[in-house]
């Protein structure tokens, strides 16, 4: 089977749009969480959020003015920006430079929702008996598969062009689906990643479920607190992450930059049985997912240097750490380092897995552990398993070989990706 590597990265994150800004932000521990006046005006309990800052000039790098006419889809905006950045970083052509479909290249780019604000506009128009005034722009921005359709067109992709959707595991799942397709020889390059709309109409349902924190409205940068004793719910976010997944053979032929190798992975579900439910994970399934991923990578659990966790800042963080500990059979001094990117960017929902994977790949490539901000008051159940120094609060420069990244989602679904430093 083909070896599979990552040859391009792109990101639009609450704490930085574009790889250079994002890399600097995560190294420095810069929070992308800000007070959101619209959430206050609409009487939300949680009034802080992670919304990427995207300027008009940045939009015009990736869209032409006609495309931006009547444009109102965060998921498509963030996904196109991240996807094209990754594709170009991989040295691959885009736009008019691609004259014919590239039959060997495809895209699997996930989302949980697309164009919710655009759909809201359309619903108002329809109810005002103005359906004919909708024009041509509604469908292309509100299809669940809008993002893969936009990227497929901009990049001239001729292999599979699709969108996956599995709640907060979407990003990790997209990368593993791309990995499997390339490993099986059905494509040479796949653009993988995920995106999500942000804003009040996307986050409202989470606010109503009381899964978002309402205790940190007066301190946004300290508001997202994974693994801390004072974790009181997640901070909602938005954005996109993108990775070019490619066969090693193709990457070497093209002399492409190789950021990391995908060593293996696993996707499963707890079937919403035992303690698993629509909203809660079945721990047996989580542990099984991690173990199977390590096995798929042909590794021993002791080889994992870093865990890049799902760790959302809810009461489930301690359960997740216990699950990692049981799955890898490691604790105390033997426990790997732990990183939780949500401390800086909140929970970017369907985009979370891909943005966090981009961070993990950067860590392997450049050899660093980003600071876990807002973990000064470590949760006692986590502190009982993981020594303080394994959850660094400052940037640590360190050569890393293997990172395990997991994402878990509503519907009791799990995905775990094992990344390793590329060695010829």
């Amino acid at each position, binding site marked *: 089977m083909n070896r599979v590597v990552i040859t391009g990265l792109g990101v639009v994150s609450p704490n930085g749009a574009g790889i250079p800004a994002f890399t600097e932000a995560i190294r420095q521990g810069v929070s992308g969480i800000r007070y959101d006046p619209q959430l206050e005006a609409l009487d939300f*309990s949680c009034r802080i959020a992670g919304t990427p800052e995207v300027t008009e000039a940045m939009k015009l790098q990736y869209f032409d003015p006609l495309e931006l006419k009547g444009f109102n889809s965060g998921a498509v905006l963030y996904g196109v920006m991240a996807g094209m950045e990754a594709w170009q970083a991989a040295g691959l052509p885009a736009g008019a430079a691609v004259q014919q479909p590239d039959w060997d290249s495809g895209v699997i780019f996930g989302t949980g929702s697309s164009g919710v604000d655009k759909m809201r506009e359309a619903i108002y128009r329809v109810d005002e008996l103005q359906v004919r005034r909708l024009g041509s722009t509604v469908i292309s921005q509100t299809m669940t598969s809008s993002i893969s359709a936009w990227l497929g067109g901009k990049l001239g992709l001729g292999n599979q062009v699709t969108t996956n959707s599995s709640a907060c595991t979407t990003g990790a799942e997209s990368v593993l689906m791309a990995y499997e397709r390339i490993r099986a020889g059905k494509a040479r390059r796949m653009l993988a990643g995920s995106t999500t709309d942000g804003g009040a109409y996307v986050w409202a349902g989470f606010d*109503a*479920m*009381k899964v978002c924190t*309402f205790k940190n409205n007066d301190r946004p940068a300290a508001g997202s607190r994974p693994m801390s004793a004072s974790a009181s719910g997640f901070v909602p976010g938005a954005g996109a992450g993108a990775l070019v997944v490619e066969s090693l053979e193709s990457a070497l032929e093209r002399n492409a930059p190789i950021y990391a190798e995908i060593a293996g992975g696993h996707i499963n579900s707890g079937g919403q049985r035992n303690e698993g*439910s*629509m*909203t*809660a994970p079945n721990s047996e399934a989580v542990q099984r997912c991690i173990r199977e991923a390590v096995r798929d990578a042909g590794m021993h659990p002791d080889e994992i240097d870093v865990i890049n966790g799902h760790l959302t800042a809810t009461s489930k963080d301690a359960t997740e750490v216990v699950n990692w500990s049981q799955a890898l059979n490691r604790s105390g001094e033997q426990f790997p380092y732990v990183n939780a990117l949500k401390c800086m960017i909140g929970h970017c929902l369907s985009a979370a897995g891909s943005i966090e994977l981009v961070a993990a790949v950067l860590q392997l490539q450049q050899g660093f552990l980003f600071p876990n901000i807002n973990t000064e008051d470590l949760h006692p159940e986590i502190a009982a398993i993981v020594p303080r120094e394994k959850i660094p609060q400052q940037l640590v420069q360190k050569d890393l070989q293997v990172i395990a990244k997991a994402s878990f989602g509503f519907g009791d679904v799990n995905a775990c990706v094992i990344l390793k430093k590329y060695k010829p």
Partner: protein
Amino acid sequence: MDKTTLMATIKEVVQPYTKNPEALATLNEDTDFIRDLKINSANLVDVVLDVEEKFNIVIDNDSMEKMINVRAAMEVVENKLAAS
């Protein structure tokens, strides 16, 4: 409102969410919504909304967090009714 009526009303509210009819039949002040009645934790907010509707009160976030058993739910309702 007397305690018996209050408890009976809360019992009525939680009935559709409970997965454990035996615990519902013997519901008392110590009955825990999740541990005893086996209510899905995600449904606790729906229980609170139904309580609001039933008693025509508004329950703030901090009070909502406390409503994990019958006793706490009764206290919250009594306080809100007294304040209204």
